[in-house]
């Protein structure tokens, strides 16, 4: 699904990722953990194609294609989804309009006709129920006036509607209370499937109690310092990042 090899990235001449390698196979959930400034969000953004990052070395292949050569919108249409840490508010663009435009962009790519508006609304409502979002959401602007928790739920709702092959969730758990965390986790789990993969970027292992990863990686100074299974997250929780950063130094 995703193959990152020796990836180096800098922002404004400051090296952030430094020879990072990672393999994500279909059906797997990977958690990326690490202290502040270790490059977690940079990795998520580079995979989604955000401008402002200079790739100085390495390769990224997604479903056999050179991901770094694809425009952000091409990546999205090929089934890559980024759940933002800080989703933007876009007043004046209706939530449903965006969802529909996004789904139709993928469908056009696949040579399929546009979605039927009525059926689509039904699908959105069904997913909204899962995310415990009320009907008023439909007519509101994208994230307009949403609380932090609502924005994150909206990210997951978009993911549920778009059904991506590879979801990258950038600190989707930050700022969530425990109830919202469970709702978000339920949303993520509902999409687990042998054909789909997920990369969960997180600070804390709390989310991983609900979204149980197949692999846990610890990012330190721009490269993966340690990989393991879920027990690694628990050990990090107990011993703190110093344990790994000390080793990596």
């Amino acid at each position: 699904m995703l193959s990152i090899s020796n990836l180096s990235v800098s922002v404004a001449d400051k090296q952030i990722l430094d020879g990072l390698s990672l393999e994500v196979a279909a059906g797997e959930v990977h958690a990326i953990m690490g202290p502040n400034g270790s490059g977690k969000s940079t990795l998520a953004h580079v995979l989604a194609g955000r401008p402002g990052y200079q790739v100085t070395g390495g390769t990224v292949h997604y479903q056999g294609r050179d991901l770094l050569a694809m425009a952000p919108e091409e990546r999205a249409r090929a089934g890559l989804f980024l759940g933002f840490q800080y989703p933007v508010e876009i007043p004046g663009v209706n939530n449903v309009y965006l969802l529909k435009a996004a789904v139709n962009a993928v469908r056009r790519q696949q040579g399929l006709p546009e979605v039927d508006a009525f059926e689509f609304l039904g699908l959105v409502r069904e997913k909204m129920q899962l995310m415990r979002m009320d009907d008023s959401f439909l007519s509101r602007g994208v994230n307009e006036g949403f609380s932090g928790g609502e924005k994150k739920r909206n990210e997951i709702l978009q993911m549920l509607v778009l059904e991506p092959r590879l979801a990258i969730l950038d600190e989707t758990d930050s700022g969530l209370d425990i109830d919202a965390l469970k709702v978000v986790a339920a949303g993520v789990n509902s999409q687990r499937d042998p054909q789909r993969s997920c990369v969960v970027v997180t600070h804390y292992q709390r989310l991983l109690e609900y979204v149980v990863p197949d692999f846990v990686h610890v990012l330190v100074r721009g490269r993966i310092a340690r990989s393991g299974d879920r027990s690694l997250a628990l050990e990090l929780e107990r011993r703190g990042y110093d344990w790994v950063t000390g080793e990596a130094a």
Partner: protein
Amino acid sequence: MSSTLTNRIVEDYASVAAALPAAGAAAQRRRGAIEALRAVGLPGARDENWKYANLRPLERLRFVPAVPAPPAQLPATEPAPLPGFARYVLVDGVLAAALSAPLDATAAQVFSLAGAGSPAGATPAAAGALARPWRELQGDERFALLNAAFATDGLGIRVAGASSQPVRIELLFIASADQQAGASYPRVELTLADGAHLELIERHVSAGMQPSFVTSAVTVDMAPRATLQHYRLQELNAHSTLFDTLSAQLAARASYRLHGIGSGAQSARSTLMVHLGEGAQLQLAAAAIADRQQVLDTYALVEHTAPDARTVQTFRGIAAGRARVGFNGKIVVQPAARGSDSQQSLRGLLAGAEAEIDLRPQLEIHTDEVRCSHGATAGKLDENMLFYLLSRGLDRDSAQRLLKWAFLEDVIAQVALPALRRQIEERLVGRLRDEQLRELL
């Protein structure tokens, strides 16, 4: 202004004066206006509030009024009349009765300003510029003088007092004459009695692709507690020149919602002057969408003259290509206007490397106990928003169009008539698409 220009105006006037309608009030108005113009002239580029306007076309334009030739029927491209609205069509400023669907109500009188049909005492009591002595006339209303001197017709609208339902009127001004043949002088004199309610749509369109020169003047006189929703849509063709002046007086607790949406003309200048009495309210929401080499400029002067008046002003402008968009909004709170409340939000979106946006919020406060806030920002499309949309699979062009659309929504959403709002949105969708196509050329 150059004296050459003044001389040309006076000469043009002399050449047609004898042929202009000379019914009592109109003739007096005309003579007063031309005398005042001779004395004060039109504003020039050095005038503080005119530096964003395009005054150059004046050098080659003729001022004599065009003789309209109304079409037998309205072009199919014109928007359908809105349900419940009477429609009056004026071609080159002259009422075309055959094309109009007059009001079927006694709550208002609508009459041609050309003379014969005017009810007694129809001259507005305090109708902005024209009711005040010329020497007191503010420099920025001087294009209204041009209209007052040359307008051969126009509409007077008088809305009687309190009724539960608002009177609904649409005015469709069609510019049909080529500027070589003469100018068009749309004119509206609006009077609302105590407690009267009016919903007014004022559209300016072109009949074809010929360049037209349009100088419009609207006066609004609102008695206490009157309410007015006024939608002004400027959709002239891309070759035309427009100078527009609106002067409004609001008596105590009158409430005026003034919406201006300008996307047409090669260059258009709108001058809005509003005086607010005690507890009067003004909601001014304006949008301008310009591309190619269009120049769309608005000057809005709002004066709070008595206590407790309130102004909310919103402007959104998009300039693409090499277009220029200007909005100069000045709010003056006079010494007597304690308890004033004003909010001003001006935003511009630069959608072309050579486009220009000039926003100027001004507050002049001469008393304490007021609440005034203002903000003005001009910039490009928000990169974070754009990336968010791209990351959802939208192509770049669609994403940019969508964000431009969203940018204008602050103003469009304030259009309280759903059917009209839909028409405006449809036009904007078309407009934003056009722009994309032009970028491909």
